[in-house]
């Protein structure tokens, strides 16, 4: 009998296990009357993640019908795009997502989204001029895709600036106000290397080509040109483009510039082993907190006698919510994020330049903050040089971006000259673009 009993127990156990597997995953919401939406962002702890959580928490506390969950996506906008793609394959979507500028076309071609004006007209019609009232046209234009649709609203705006270690520059006997041109950057870096033995310069190398776009487009090259039929062709392998990339490659070669990962490079600047750091203004807060020396920012260097061109970094917010009540909730949350107070908190937490009007001067905005944080000024002063971040059109865009990264590795690693690597990469990208 005893034996039978244990056998019976074993059978029940087996049955229970099988049953557990057969039950589909159902999540039971605690508050059934609240609309739950997800907000996907790319802000790691040191890049504004804390502010995201604070903003979301404040929003959740201030209303009784929507609950927002913030979800962090590693590996920046590319990482978020990958996760979104995987999520969409399962048929579910977050409500509000951050989309990097480089993915503007890819996103709008492949995902179903609600244009901000459509959401406003449908759910917020008494405030139908919200966009034109609060945003400059050239800023709004950054989130317009190649077909002319307003895909989202600019949210995080950044541009690259040059962070300088004034103490090191002084020690090297060069102007502690920093270089104004790329030629001077090379010269200063060399002086630092020779006089102090430390590194002179590091240019950010994450999984995008953003900073390098500023370098080569400021020299008069352009990443992408439209030919007579309106077909886009890669065009960065001009003499100007090659000259610009070769300048950095030569600095790496003679040891005055670093060629390491982005985090390693920023660490080296912050602990005083590298005199100049060319990276996004979005890193201001972490540089300012970490640096134990006289640190400042200067505007992105230009090439002797040429105009400055800095790509807009950061992202816009797009609504990917499906279904009316989700879209309405998404818009309500988004509108809250664009309020003067939220925008000010966002700028303080991240170092992004506010995309909407009236934030910089408002008392409840950034007036006091900007008076104290002069490192922001370089980024705000060069807004006239902001150009869109090049997005290669169509489905080949992702692969084109990858080819640019491979090219950068080849050039800075010294495996190929800038001219050769850029010419062959340009041919490969154009082949991809022509094939689609």
């Amino acid at each position: 009998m005893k034996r039978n009993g244990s056998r019976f127990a074993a059978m029940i156990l087996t049955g229970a296990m099988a049953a557990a597997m057969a039950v589909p995953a159902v999540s039971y919401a605690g508050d059934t009357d609240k609309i739950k939406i997800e907000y996907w962002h790319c802000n790691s702890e040191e890049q504004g993640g804390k502010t995201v959580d604070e903003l979301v928490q404040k929003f959740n506390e201030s209303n009784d019908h929507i609950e927002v969950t913030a979800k962090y996506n590693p590996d920046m906008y590319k990482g978020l795009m990958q996760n979104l793609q995987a999520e969409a394959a399962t048929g579910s979507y977050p409500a509000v997502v951050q989309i990097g500028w480089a993915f503007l076309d890819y996103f709008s071609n492949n995902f179903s989204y609600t244009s901000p004006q459509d959401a406003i007209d449908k759910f917020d019609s008494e405030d139908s001029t919200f966009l034109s009232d609060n945003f400059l046209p050239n800023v709004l234009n950054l989130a317009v895709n190649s077909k002319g649709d307003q895909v989202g609203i600019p949210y995080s705006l950044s541009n690259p600036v040059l962070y300088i270690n004034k103490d090191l520059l002084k020690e090297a006997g060069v102007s502690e106000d920093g270089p104004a041109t790329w030629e001077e950057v090379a010269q200063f870096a060399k002086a630092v290397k020779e006089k102090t033995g430390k590194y002179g310069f590091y240019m950010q190398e994450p999984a995008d080509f953003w900073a390098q776009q500023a370098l080569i487009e400021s020299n008069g090259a352009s990443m992408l040109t439209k030919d007579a039929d309106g077909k886009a062709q890669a065009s960065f392998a001009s003499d100007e483009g090659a000259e610009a990339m070769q300048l950095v490659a030569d600095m790496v070669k003679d040891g005055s510039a670093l060629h390491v990962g982005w985090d390693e490079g920023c660490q080296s600047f912050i602990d005083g082993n590298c005199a100049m750091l060319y990276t996004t203004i979005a890193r201001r807060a972490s540089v300012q907190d970490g640096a134990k020396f006289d640190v400042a920012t200067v505007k992105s260097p230009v090439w002797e006698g040429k105009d400055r061109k800095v790509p807009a970094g950061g992202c816009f917010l797009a609504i990917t919510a499906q279904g009316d009540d989700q879209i309405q909730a998404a818009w309500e949350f988004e509108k809250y994020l664009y309020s003067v107070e939220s925008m000010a908190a966002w700028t303080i937490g991240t170092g992004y330049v506010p995309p909407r009007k009236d934030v910089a001067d408002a008392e409840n905005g950034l007036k006091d903050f900007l008076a104290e944080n002069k490192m922001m000024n370089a980024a705000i002063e060069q807004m006239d040089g902001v150009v869109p971040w090049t997005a290669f059109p169509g489905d080949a865009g992702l692969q084109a971006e990858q080819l640019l990264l491979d090219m950068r590795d080849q050039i800075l690693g010294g495996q190929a000259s800038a001219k050769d690597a850029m010419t062959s990469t340009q041919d490969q990208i154009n082949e991809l673009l022509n094939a689609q």
Partner: protein
Amino acid sequence: MADQKKQSVLGYVFLIPSLAAFCVFMFYPLFYTVYLSFFDWNMIQPQKKFVGFQNYVILLRAPNTWKILGNTFWYIVILLILNWALPYLVSFVLSFVVGRMRGFYKSALFLPSIISLVVGSILYTWILNPVSGPVAILLKPLGIRLPFWTKTDGWVIAGLCIITTWKTFGYNLIVLLAGISGVSPEVIEAARLDNVPLRRIFFDIVVPMSSATGIYVFIITIVQGLQYVFTPIKVITQGGPNYASSNLIYMSYHNAFTLFKTGTASAASVLTMLLFVILLLLEFRFVERGVYYEN
């Protein structure tokens, strides 16, 4: 008779749960991967385009594939040294040479196994920072400069292997220790009385007598090691510089979730699987025979 039949039916009933799990999480994905490898698809297009063997052709023609295959080989070699040969030696030393503090060494070496490899990777980015990390600072007075390993061909593989070893060394050590403890102490004592050198005790007595465990760790070092290495690749180098740190497993991932070419990614997975099947067959054919199983 009827009782016997009942018994065997019951046996199958007990098998159902694990069989179901295998079907859902292993066999179905496996066949679906093979299926996908014949299509051109980016995971969201409603239509998959049938392209036959084209994905395989593209893959075998790409010079990067061969570079990545070479990288995979070096990953295996380095991981076998650091994660199989070395813990084998250390567990021998711990069992028969070191007398004291055995428990301390065991737990100290095992500790990193329970820490996430993502955390480890971020930690090591700082520890091994060639300019300002603690290792660089310690080596500076000795006149040694760390290479810019994250951006240098060759060094990048070594660096990522070191991080992976930090994670997996302890587990392999414990398993090998268990294997070696099966070698009866009388044999070792007898050898010692005859003044057999330690080197020969290790190679001629301990290794043959613990070979069942040894071969197990050998195989999981290759198979799991390549998967573990994936994490530091993803966190630190994303396969760069210029594919110098990519391996077969990262290549599949990169194609599928960075470039969204599920066809090429699946083809890469299928080829990887075939490669491992061949390796395992070779292992069964030539190595398994010489392995000593106690029971």
